[in-house]
């Protein structure tokens, strides 16, 4: 029903809020309890502060390369808030906000970007896959996880994320198609942030919208204002309904913008203008959502100041901890490739330990 109302070929963008946080689509305003609304906002702020701080740490040489999420918090928090704990998140590499909402700790997130695999050893019950770097390949994992959920009757749905550039990849095609063929409970969210590193969206594909790629797989596709957390929540809700009813996958194009660099190694000023960035800053998902909350009397400047300070302190404390605990011994290198270490690898480890011991004296 819901998806039939929106034709991806018409370039209609589904939205609930306008730029000023006012509800422009009353019928589709999701009914979210206050506690959840506040949790959503808190996580968006946490993700933002963590990002801003990490950029600073990185410039100080204390943090390694990472992929900032600034500007894309709504595409990530909306769907995660609409989902159950047991539903899965299969991220690409720019989903720090979604991961935090799903129960990955900031410490883990930082530890990962600090260069340590322990940051991907999420807690029991946190159904999140590690950061996935090879573009598109996560979509196939999502299809498989959803397939298992379906035939084991687990009732879990699966969210996976990909970028606009990623939709050109063969693995995206195979994964979405695989999910569609078996009607698995899988929701693919394209975060169209307008660029793949320096390459503009128009260079990725000639299709006018990315949502219309759904037609190739015989599933619904919809373009959504990705800076509108309520719209993202609402659409995810409907996609989840389909998933849970055994109606199969949905493809969501979240129209958004990356406010920061691609990664900390990137210099976006080479390929985009300040004006463009400034224009998008006026659509900042956090500001819009904050205004909505204020209109609902759930938020005010005092709370905002307090939260900002709280998050800042928390983030700094967490990063300092990571700097202490994030180091790496030989066991970390050798012990996780297999459940049981093969004999020849054991020998290599022994040799290396012997070398370390031997050279200690020098």
């Amino acid at each position, binding site marked *: 029903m819901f998806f039939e109302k929106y034709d991806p070929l018409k370039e209609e963008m589904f939205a609930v809020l306008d730029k000023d946080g006012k509800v422009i689509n009353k019928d589709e305003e999701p009914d979210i309890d206050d506690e959840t609304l506040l949790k959503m906002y808190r996580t968006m702020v946490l993700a933002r502060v963590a990002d801003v701080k990490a950029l600073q740490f990185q410039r100080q040489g204390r943090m390694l390369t990472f992929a900032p999420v600034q500007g894309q918090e709504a595409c990530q928090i909306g769907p995660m808030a609409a989902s159950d704990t047991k539903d899965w998140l299969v991220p690409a590499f720019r989903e720090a906000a979604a991961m935090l909402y799903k129960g990955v700790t900031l410490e883990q997130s930082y530890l990962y970007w600090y260069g340590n695999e322990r940051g991907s050893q999420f807690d029991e019950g946190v159904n999140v896959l590690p950061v996935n770097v090879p573009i598109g390949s996560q979509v196939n*994992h999502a299809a498989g996880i959803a*397939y298992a959920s379906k035939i084991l009757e*687990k009732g879990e749905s699966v969210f996976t994320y990909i970028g606009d550039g990623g939709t050109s990849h063969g693995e995206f*095609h195979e994964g979405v198609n695989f999910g569609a063929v078996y009607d698995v409970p899988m929701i693919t969210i394209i975060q169209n942030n307008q660029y793949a590193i320096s390459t503009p969206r128009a260079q990725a594909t000639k299709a006018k919208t990315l949502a219309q790629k759904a037609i190739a797989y015989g599933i619904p596709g919809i373009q959504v204002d990705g800076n509108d957390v309520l719209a993202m929540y609402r659409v995810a809700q409907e996609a989840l309904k389909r998933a849970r009813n055994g109606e199969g996958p949905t493809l969501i194009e979240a129209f958004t913008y990356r406010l920061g660099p691609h990664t900390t190694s990137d210099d976006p000023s080479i390929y985009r203008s300040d004006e463009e960035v400034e224009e998008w800053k006026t659509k900042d998902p956090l500001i819009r959502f904050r205004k909505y909350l204020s209109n609902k009397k759930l938020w005010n400047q005092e709370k905002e100041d307090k939260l900002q300070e709280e998050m800042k302190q928390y983030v700094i404390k967490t990063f300092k901890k990571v700097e202490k605990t994030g180091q790496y011994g030989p066991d970390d290198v050798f012990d996780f*490739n297999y459940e049981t270490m093969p004999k*020849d690898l054991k020998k290599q480890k022994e040799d290396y330990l012997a070398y370390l011991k031997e050279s200690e004296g020098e």
Partner: protein
Amino acid sequence: MATLTLLGAINHTLEQQMEKDKSVVVFGEDAGFEGGVFRVTAGLQKKFGKDRVFDTPIAEAGIIGAGVGMAINGLRPVAEIQFSGFMFPGYNQIAMHMARMRNRSRGKYSVPMVLRMPYGGGVRALEHHSESLETLFAHIPGLKLVIPSTPYDAKGLLTAAIKDNDPVIYFEPKKIYRAFKQEVPEEEYTVEIGKARVVQEGSDVTVVSWGAMMRDTLKAIESLKDEGISVEVIDLRTIAPMDSETVVESVKKTGRFLVVHEAVKTLGIGAELISRVNEGAFFHLEAQPVRLTSPDITVPLPKGEHHHIVDQKRIAQAIKKLANFE
């Protein structure tokens, strides 16, 4: 006890494991309804239903990547690649994900998955249907690779692979799918992954091979039986992790080493074995170790195959030469 071909043993093992373990699922291109182009999975869909035994779209990255996802979420997928030459479009998933998910997540997620694929030449097939790609798996940390040469090992290795909590590549020597039968115990058993088999003890020369080439090797040795050469024959059986210990111990005894394989020479498994023999038994070597392999060229179409893969005659000749070297 049943008398089974290698193909029959695989089919029987899949059926047995699917019966014992509800989490085992089987899929691949044409692997469901018709039971695979070689009929290795014949009868399984009928018995276990379409959810557990199914046809996939033609999409190797999809098959393997979805398999990784299934394995993460509670299934034990046994996926089929129709011919090993078609694993290439899925190699990203194999090398970057199947092999790495455990390490990447520090053990939170493992991939108890088996990837079956018929491999090897000698069946007069089209291009890409005859490759021997051991190296491309054995070079990747995190992967195991097994190759049975008998129905008995086919069952034992496949059972071990399905029970393994890490991913296992399972090569099927299609040339000998139906070449001969062997008694195979009905009850479940495993053959340890990572353990070579000494097929025949001997004291003059060590010969290592595996898969379909094992048959040619044994025939070559048979043809030499009046020459008075005592050959120790090892079926490597697991390519990764490589049981070099067994090989090295043998060479310590014989001082002479020959490896025979279908893959091309450069960076074939023979290169690794020679290096390990050097590392483990250098001062026992009485002659230069020898690789008998295909030359470094693309597998020819069938009319040229006999110039590519070594045969019984060449193996016999190489053994004789090596044994007689002074």
